[in-house]
């Protein structure tokens, strides 16, 4: 048995690869692009081809000791440098340091007359010279297809492209070639025909007016690869792909506990509250007090002198402050002290990935010790996108855990029990503590009940407690459970009175 496993593993040892250094992409491709071979990146306009290629070159030069040549056919060097500066890359400096070489190939059809036989030896010489001058190991050709518009004789061009890819392979260059997406083929001029080792497709689509970027490895000769479509984003820190597998569970686990801000809940959570850096899910149907409870976590952190950040997706900043005031929670002083920040926006305003980027940036700027996302379900309400939400959420939780930031998420669930189970199942496994809020209707009144469904790593109460919201704040009282079942609200009070009366009677006896 063991032997067979070994054989399987040795078979899996695949071709040499060159790391791209792009978060997530190296996981999807199991180690990067094929070393010494060309990789085709295709996608429509604005799909992020050039950004990916640029990051591949910059990372090669800075992190892997592999200088690279970036040959561009559309933008010129200044334009490219300006475009990637937003991701923090200084191409000019890299070029001056001899780590990269930029060459803009300008081809103007109207300037060119064609008579008789020719070849593209000039391109080869140019590329060869750039490679030799910096000892390049990586080459980007962005977008080679511009040649088709510039050179009228496609027969010669195709023969030369074939020769070019062979030549790049012979020189051992790890090459990235970008191509514009065609209507039926992967690229407009079918250059995937020449680049057969690795093909990556970038997609920028809009569903329900929300844009998402996706990446897919169409083929990868001689290697296993992830076959899914992976969401990716382009943010201030560059290109980032979100495979679930990139999550390594190696973050530190703090044993420090932080208060929830509601003493009754702390009591239920082993008397001390939740672990610092853990993730808390508060779920419940509408009007059960999810937001209020979540904001208490934030206010409690702020009162301890820590910074707390609230992402509010349903209420505006002012509305939140006013509403919390109505239950005795004064946020204004905490906000003016700079300990609490509320970031209110509609999640559908941006694509999910861009959203995550925005959250990431906000978190990086404010450096909070606690983050509230209210509600997380709004992120998933953008159509049926649970497959996207889950990795995105994982990514967010992972980020927060690595930074030891306590995360509190609220989640709106329907009263319908069937959908509740299924919608929660996806994200609850990511959570360390799950607090459930419920409406209980009986005797002509509606009361709120709270219970802790799970809380990893601590003893926690198994009781259902009644959750009271008043102008004096949130509190939890023990619901009466006895032979008559769980009693809440006036039934509980009446019962308590009866009990009291009984005991009084006993005393008088």
């Amino acid at each position, binding site marked *: 048995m063991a032997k067979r496993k070994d054989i399987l593993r040795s078979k899996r040892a695949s071709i040499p690869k060159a790391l791209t250094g792009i978060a997530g992409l190296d996981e999807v491709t199991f180690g990067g692009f094929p070393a010494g071979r060309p990789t085709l990146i295709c996608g429509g306009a604005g799909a992020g081809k050039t950004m990916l290629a640029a990051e591949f070159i910059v990372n090669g030069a800075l992190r892997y000791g592999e200088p690279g040549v970036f040959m561009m056919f559309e933008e010129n060097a200044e334009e490219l440098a300006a475009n990637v500066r937003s991701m923090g890359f200084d191409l000019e400096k890299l070029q001056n340091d001899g780590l990269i070489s930029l060459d803009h190939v300008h081809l103007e059809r109207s*300037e060119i007359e*064609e008579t*008789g036989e020719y070849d593209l030896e000039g391109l080869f010489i*140019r590329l060869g010279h750039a490679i030799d001058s910096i000892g390049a190991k990586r080459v980007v050709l962005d977008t080679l297809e511009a040649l088709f518009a510039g050179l009228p004789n496609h027969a010669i061009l195709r023969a030369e492209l074939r020769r070019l890819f062979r030549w790049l392979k012979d020189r051992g260059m790890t090459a990235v070639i970008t191509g514009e997406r065609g209507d039926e083929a992967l690229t407009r001029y079918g250059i995937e025909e020449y680049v057969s080792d690795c093909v990556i497709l970038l997609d920028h689509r809009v569903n329900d007016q929300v844009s998402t970027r996706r990446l897919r490895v169409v083929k990868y000769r001689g290697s296993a690869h992830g076959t899914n479509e992976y969401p990716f984003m382009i943010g201030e820190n560059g290109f980032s792909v979100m495979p679930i597998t990139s999550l390594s569970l190696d973050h530190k686990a703090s044993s420090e506990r932080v208060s929830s801000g509601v003493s009754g809940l702390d009591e239920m959570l082993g008397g001390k509250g939740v672990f610092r850096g853990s993730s808390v899910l508060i779920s419940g149907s509408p009007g059960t007090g999810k937001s209020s409870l979540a904001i208490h976590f934030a206010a409690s952190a702020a009162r301890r002198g820590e910074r707390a950040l609230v992402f509010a997706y349903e209420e505006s900043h002012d509305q939140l402050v006013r509403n919390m005031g109505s239950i005795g929670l004064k946020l204004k002083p905490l906000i003016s002290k700079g300990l609490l920040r509320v970031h209110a926006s509609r999640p559908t305003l941006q694509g999910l990935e861009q959203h995550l980027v925005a959250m990431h940036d906000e978190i990086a700027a404010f450096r909070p010790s606690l983050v509230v996302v209210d509600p997380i379900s709004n992120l998933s309400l953008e159509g049926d996108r649970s497959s996207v939400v889950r990795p995105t959420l994982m990514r967010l939780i992972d980020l927060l855990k690595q930074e030891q930031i306590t995360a509190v998420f609220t989640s709106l669930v329907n009263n319908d029990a069937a959908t509740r189970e299924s919608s929660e199942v996806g994200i609850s496994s990511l959570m360390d503590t799950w607090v459930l809020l419920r409406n209980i209707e009986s005797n002509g009144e509606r009361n709120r009940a709270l219970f802790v469904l799970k809380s990893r790593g601590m003893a926690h109460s198994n009781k259902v407690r009644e959750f009271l919201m008043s102008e004096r704040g949130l509190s939890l009282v023990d619901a009466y459970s006895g032979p008559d079942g769980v009693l809440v609200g006036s039934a509980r009070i009446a019962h308590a009175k009866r009990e009291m009366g009984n005991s009084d009677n006993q005393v008088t006896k």
Partner: protein
Amino acid sequence: MPPKKLISGVEYQLRLYVAGQTPKSTAAIENLNKICETHLSGRYKIEVIDLLINPKLAAGDQILAVPTLVRQLPEPIKKIIGDLSNEERVLVGLDVHPLG
């Protein structure tokens, strides 16, 4: 001092980029000499650049295909790629009206 016109009497400054001694480059040089002698006698100057010797110039002068003939003067710059076997198209490319 007249600007740009460096050599008196020369109207056409031409540069031919080749890569080594290939049949195509030899043909291009021969064709170019013949066309210039016929139509631009005494009014031209040809400079042949071998990119194998001067690879740097390929990027500087935006050369991809070889052979490439570049008309540097008179402006604007024009490029003709190929072995220049079609005299008529070379003349069109250079914007030269054949004599007679």
